[in-house]
């Protein structure tokens, strides 16, 4: 079980969080033309890197804030967590 530092609440056990996938995906803007390829990339295609990965986590049993986590997918080491409006 991971130990995750919520940038709002501090160190908490993984049990309190929900995983939210790749934290670098950017939703295409509303009311803009998006090509089929770009849209498919956004909806379906995700990288599955071995090593460092920026991901989203949601503190569902806590402050209910989404935030970003820089985690190593091999070692599970968490290098950094950041609020959603901060750079990671």
């Amino acid at each position: 079980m991971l130990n995750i530092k919520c940038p709002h609440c501090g160190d908490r056990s993984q049990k309190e969080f929900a995983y939210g996938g790749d934290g670098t995906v950017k939703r295409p803007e509303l009311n803009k033309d998006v090509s089929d390829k770009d849209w498919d990339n956004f909806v379906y295609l995700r990288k599955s890197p071995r090593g460092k990965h920026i991901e989203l986590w949601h503190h569902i049993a806590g402050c209910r804030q989404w935030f970003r986590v820089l985690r190593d997918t091999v070692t599970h080491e968490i290098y950094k967590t950041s609020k959603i409006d901060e750079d990671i």
Partner: protein
Amino acid sequence: MSQNFRIKGEGLINRDEPIEFKFNRKKYIGYKGDTLASALLANGIHLIGRSFKYHRPRGFFGAGVDEPNAKMQVEINGHSEPNINATEIELVEGLSATSQNCWPSVEFDIGAINNFLNKFFPAGFYYKTFMWPKSFWYKVYEPFIRKAAGLGVASLEKDKERYEHKYEYCDLLVTGSGPAGLAGAYSAAKNGAKVILAEDKPRFGGSLLTDEVTIDNLSGKAWADKIISELKEMPNVVLKNRSQVFGYYDHNMTVMFERTGDHLEKKSKYTPRQRLWYIRAKEVLLSTGSIERPIVFGNNDTPGVFLSAAAKEYMKVYGVLIGKKPIIFTNNDSAYETAIEFKKNAVEPLILDTREDQDSELINEAKSMNINIKFSYAVIAANGYKKVKSATIGKLNKDKTNFETIETIDCDSICVSGFWTPTVHLASQSGNKLRFDDKIDAFVPDKSKQNENSIGASNGTFTLKETLKSSFKIGSEVSKKITKKENLIQLPNTNERKYSSHDKFWCSPLPKGKHYKRFVDFQNDVAVSDIEVALREGYRSIEHVKRYTTLGMATDQGRTSNLNGLQLVANVEKKIVPQVGHTTFRPPFTPITIGTIVGREIGKEYMPTRKTPMHNWHQENNAVWVDAGAWKRPRYYKRGNETLLEASKREAKNVREHVGICDVTTLGKIDIKGPDSAEFLNRIYTNAWLKLPIGKARYGVMLREDGIVMDDGTTTRISENHYHMTTTTAQAANVLSHLEYYLQIVWPELNVNVVSTTEQWAGAAIAGPKSRDVLTKLFPKLDVSNEKLPFMGYMKGDLFGVKARIFRISFSGELAYEVNIKSDYGLSMWEKIIEIGEEFKIQPYGTEALSTLRIEMGHVAGPELDGRTIPYDVSLEGLVSKKKDFIGKRSLEKEAFNKENRQKIVGLVPLDKKSSIPEGSHLVEDKNAKVPNPKLGHVSSSCWSVEKNNPFSLAIVKDGKNMIGKKLYAISPLKNTVIEVEIISSHYVDHEGKRVRS
């Protein structure tokens, strides 16, 4: 039998408290403080079980977790459990143990014929034998193997014991209370760190209980007691005996298993039997010690063969002699301590040392005590079937590959020592890549990956002085980092004997013409010859050899066998052990009960139960419950002998004809506030939301980004910037997370806040032609006429002076209202409505009637919004705006979503107007076609239409829009039904939706 093998005065047991217990139905006496093993040995019992594969007689070999043989069926506190390690379980009054894997008895076991057929059971026997014919697998081989496999018998009764979980955080966790653990814990505690010290055994002290050492002029045991009593006084220290840390996971999460109940004579009702601790430690000190490994020789599994350290422990801790004529067979000095201990207790040991005579403190001491020592000697084989009677021994030649002379010597036990193996399981589990240490011929921890440090024998440090020095230091250093305090401790003076170096001799060669079975792994019956077969057959990777021969795969995880197995592979392959590598260490270190893992989360405590404020009223009115996620909802209210179908028909009919009331508290409710709320809803929902007037509700559909319908519900504009959203019961949590995702990540510029209010409001749906009459009486001051409160209208109300909300929305398709009130007043509101409604023939209705009503109306719900349907499929395309953008809109342009023959929702009636169509039935054209029969669609929801008095179903069918009027078959292989159906519109009742507007 009296305890003939008990030594006078020795040991840490309490001789004032005799304990009666049973073994194989015979009564024996032991003492408080005994293990089952020590008590049996005190009574001279050695034959305790039969081996797994060959059913060979087996006896005790170790004195703790190292024991591979002594697995027993144990009855304690009225429950029976298999595979209990007799060397670990403490003796309590009334304990009853029986041998396993033998029939009819351990003395005479039919299965022992396997021993004589052992040529037919080579390595990989199962793989080779049960391959063909294929059809034999289920009927012949599997039942046969199942019967032969396993050891004890699992109880079929419900476990009545209580198990608990506990979460703990600490600065430092110390695993093991030998000299290293005590020193590490002590210096860290002195630095003010919050320390947990865990000891697997009932007694603290580890090797200090048995080693002949002094620390500050105290015996090892006395020094350990002193440190423990000091630690007990410190508020920052938690001491836990009978507690084994068995697993090391990510981010320094360790799991500990505490035996809290089985050793108690009288356990109170709420004392758990076992407790599982999840401990997140900032730092972990691994002081798990080491385990003696045996030297392999012929028939080395005969009862009476022991590890030499175990023999010493039985004498020093339990006051028990494992034999009165022992041979000590060793390649190192440590076994001399066992010999000296025997001698002290007036037993004459014979030492066989594989090394040449040499100068060492211990050897000299043994010589001065006139102990008989034969150097360059080895045991070739143990003789005797159910107990060692003699040993064939031999003088080794120069290169130790053969014997110069061979003789037979009488003895009743053989204590073997092949040097020490650090217990590195936890270090390895933490991610530490182990390194092979040539000096001790074993793996030791290398670089730490997590915040752990191995100290003492588990780190390959075998001298007391060095162990204490390094453990005090590391304990102080790691705690100083956390507490920023340092209390230097003066190192104690130690006195211990110096060891000379061990001999790398690990297996006695076979003299010419002899075919003794030489076991490497006792528990799984893996002999040297089995591993040789595996290698001859081409298995090279140690992981493959392990699986093919099952070496080290038993519940003892190869604690006494892995290294010897590796040595053998290395010898045959002409490699060195580090090149062979080691197999993976996995938790748990020793077997733990399933009950401990489950804890209290079983039965109704498996997950929390959510109850609405009206729960007890439903209960009193014969509600039959159905689970809706964690919620309990009334499925129907049973009257007399009614069946589910009869009750739901009655309830639904009453709604259509009069008025009904349904508890809708479980619906998800989300409060939405902020100046950008309308814009936000406009992006979330597929339909338009910018122009919803205050005091009006609107039905909305939301999609996922991939275009699939996520949820539906109504949202009401309470005031200018305040909306009340409802979701389905099932999706409430997901929808909230979804909204938060978009507000926090995608559109942080929107000034909107969302919060769940599901539990703040109790809700009652009042539905049926008489519902307005009920509402009028409920709110006498309000004008709830069709003009003032039209369909999709909203009003504030006041009930007993409490704020209430009235929504004119309908799921049943009837004239209907939903009234919400603060949860605390939910029951009062409900009872009031029932009271008022009596004259209008009001009846409560459950989820089954609710479903009937919505299915008849063609309203979609969970079975239709199943994560595979787009708005078109469920005929909600009219709600999809073409003018604005929203979540998932771009996906709706996908080619597959726009095909002419795209699936669509339809209604179904059976041609016979009688047969109910099982949900999940497949729709096919030809009922007799060969499988796979092409499927045109599936039945999503079924009911008995109370309006038309015949079965009616909803289905999602390919090209649904052009299928109306066609006839198909609904087949359900599960229910074994084939029903001819006609496809009709999904709106079966009140096509125009007149009733909701009436």
